[in-house]
């Protein structure tokens, strides 16, 4: 979908909460970046499997990687702006949206001089969480990757799988266990001795530069212990990642609406058939509602509220968002590829690309089982009666 089409449909979203003038300007700015810097390069990036260095530099210099502002007390502000940007960029490319999310969020773990590098594109940082034996959000104690402290500083050993942007990252934020209780996150310089990246070609997110990372006594700097802060980071990462999935779904619906106008069946355009109209509207409404939850989540972060209007804390709200997306949003994307039928089956067809992005995002994020577990503990235990 072109940014112009995105804008046209975006302007009509029945459930879009009203944007302020500043937010409208922000959205127009992001759309212009999509139009100038992302759209024209997308085919090339997907062919090579990564956003090239010039592309990263251009995106960094545009300001997309520094939407979050760090406050003196360490908290961040600008979540609503980041959510808005992710929403727009993901309609153009889910891969690039993940790049934007990673650079904005992971800067928090970098020393100041590296942060400056993110703003120019000289530093690309990514998160290395997944391992063969772990599913869903990482927990320190259960990880295979281990850190040991010795005379030459901390060393990290283990294997991380399906790391986004591994092939273009200059720095990795790696989750690992340690002798100390809990473990944490550690910064590792990519290309350093002991850090080997093996690119992989996934079915979707084709410009995300996926790779497996093998670490063998790689020098590591501790950046964040397993604390509430670290858990909150995981929640934000997961929630905004879900927003990217939602935006990808809305882009798929928007594309299929255009496609159904062109495609004919039984003598008239597909979109004239009520069976098609209703199903698309149903999917659109459900995705839009979950999307609003994601933007509300960002608003809550900006307001620095500890508890949402529904009585949940931020971690639980992120889990609820994921749960609702899995419940209501996923079937829509299945339908979009079904509606595209034979033509959508071709690699490169927008419906197929969206679908493969959807599947890959789902594989990366996993289902909603961990989220339901968290919500069960919070919402359903007797002691919670008073709070919710």
């Amino acid at each position, binding site marked *: 979908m072109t940014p112009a089409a995105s804008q046209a449909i975006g302007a009509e979203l029945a459930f879009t909460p009203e944007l302020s003038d500043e937010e409208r300007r922000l959205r127009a700015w992001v759309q212009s970046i999509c139009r100038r810097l992302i759209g024209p390069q997308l085919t090339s990036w997907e062919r090579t499997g990564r956003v090239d260095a010039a592309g990263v530099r251009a995106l960094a210099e545009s300001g997309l990687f520094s939407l979050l502002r760090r406050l003196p007390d360490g908290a961040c502000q600008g979540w609503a702006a980041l959510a808005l940007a992710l929403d727009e960029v993901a309609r153009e490319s889910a891969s690039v949206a993940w790049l934007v999310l990673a650079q904005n969020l992971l800067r928090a773990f970098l020393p100041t001089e590296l942060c400056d590098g993110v703003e120019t594109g000289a530093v690309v940082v990514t998160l290395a969480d997944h391992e063969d034996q772990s599913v869903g959000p990482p927990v320190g104690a259960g990880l295979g990757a281990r850190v040991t402290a010795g005379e030459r500083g901390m060393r990290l050993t283990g294997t991380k799988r399906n790391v986004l942007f591994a092939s273009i990252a200059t720095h990795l934020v790696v989750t690992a266990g340690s002798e100390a209780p809990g473990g944490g996150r550690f910064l590792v310089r990519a290309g350093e001795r002991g850090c080997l990246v093996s690119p992989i070609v996934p079915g979707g997110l084709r410009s995300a530069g996926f790779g497996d990372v093998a670490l063998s006594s790689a020098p590591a700097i501790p950046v964040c212990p397993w604390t509430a802060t670290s858990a909150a980071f995981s929640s934000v990462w997961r929630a905004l990642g879900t927003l990217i999935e939602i935006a990808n779904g809305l882009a798929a619906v928007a594309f299929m609406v255009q496609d159904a106008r062109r495609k004919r069946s039984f003598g008239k355009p597909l979109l004239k058939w009520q069976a098609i109209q*209703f199903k698309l509207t149903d999917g659109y409404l459900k995705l839009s509602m979950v999307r609003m939850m994601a933007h509300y989540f*960002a608003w809550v972060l900006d307001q620095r509220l500890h508890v949402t209007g529904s009585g949940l804390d931020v971690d639980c709200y992120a889990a609820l968002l994921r749960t609702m997306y899995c419940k209501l949003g996923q079937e829509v994307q299945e339908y979009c590829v079904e509606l595209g039928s034979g033509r959508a089956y071709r690699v490169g067809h927008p419906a197929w690309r969206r679908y493969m992005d959807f599947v890959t995002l789902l594989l990366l994020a996993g289902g909603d089982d961990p989220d339901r577990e968290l919500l069960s503990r919070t919402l359903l235990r007797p002691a919670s009666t008073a709070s919710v």
Partner: protein
Amino acid sequence: MNFAAERLYDDQALAEWRDRCRGFVEHEILPFIPQWEREPRLAWECYRKLAAFGYLRLSYPRRLGGLELSGIWEEVAMEELARAGKGPRAYLVRIARNYGHLLDDGRPEHQRILEDVLSGRHMLAFAETEAAGGSDAANIRTTAVAEGGGYRLTGTKAYISLVPGADLLIVTALTDPGAGGKRGMSLFLVPVDTPGVTIVPVDTPDLKAWHTLGTVVLRDVWAPPTALLGEAHRGFYHIKARVWSRRGLDHRLTPGEALAYYFREPRDAAGRKTVGGRPLLDVPRYQSMLIDNFGFAELYRLASLRVLAGTAPAGTAASASASASAMQFFTKVLERQMMMAKLEIEGGDAVARDTRVLQDMVFHAGARAAGGGVDIHFIIVGQELYGREWACHRD
């Protein structure tokens, strides 16, 4: 994004307003519900009490005798009234709240009647639907033939809410049949006791006193020129401008009620009940159902904030009708899922104790029948999304 409406709930004056509403409902409504529900006819006494408190004119502008409260104040008032079940809120209050706006056409005589409606001296019914047209407002056959400076109305209106019971009808009729429903329809205010008007009640015992239904037969009914509401032939647009954006709110729950009713109550029930020797609350299937209900209630709450913003007094934003329709979709699609989960969890308890769940299930079915299902709302939302090529009666 502007979610600041949520902050309005923290307002001290709003809390005092909630207390006032709660006191009124607890003392003036709740004790009398069993008595009113035993009556076969509409609960006029309840209607008058609600009107006297101000429930019918919460969001009306002051120039029309209203209280001109913003959407969130109305929401709080409705949330408190919901403690009395769906009946009073969904069926009595909505009539004046929504259809009274049709009387706002700038003419002093109609404004006086509206003031009487809002103060509970009259009750309105909107004789709109016909058997062949259903939810399609433009698809009517009732005619109004110009005669001697007035009109002669002939036709049959089906499934009209609050008939019998109401004493005033707003009737849609074709004044220019050749132009069709959209460009040839006019609205008329017709007292029920006008010669030629016959009301045939439809038997709805399960809806108790709250939602009477009836057929309105019009045979050569004389309507003077002053009965015409708005401009001649522009009735469809009059309805569209004044009613449609509010219609999605007719039957819906308030967010607080949705959370209490579909999450807290079944959760507490699941804590009490056991299956295979362990509490339902420990069974993953029931846990998932409860979490889904909580999530739906949250989606509903956020959507309400959006709709509240769009339907503040005199709010006629272009997308308001689509928002209201989307809300209707939620009421009818998600609420049904929540209801099923609640029924399944509360199970035998609900039947044995004759809790509100069974009664509300019936009201829910009644609302679906009265509102015409979700198809029309899909069309309204779809047209906003996808443009004019959707098959739809809107311009």
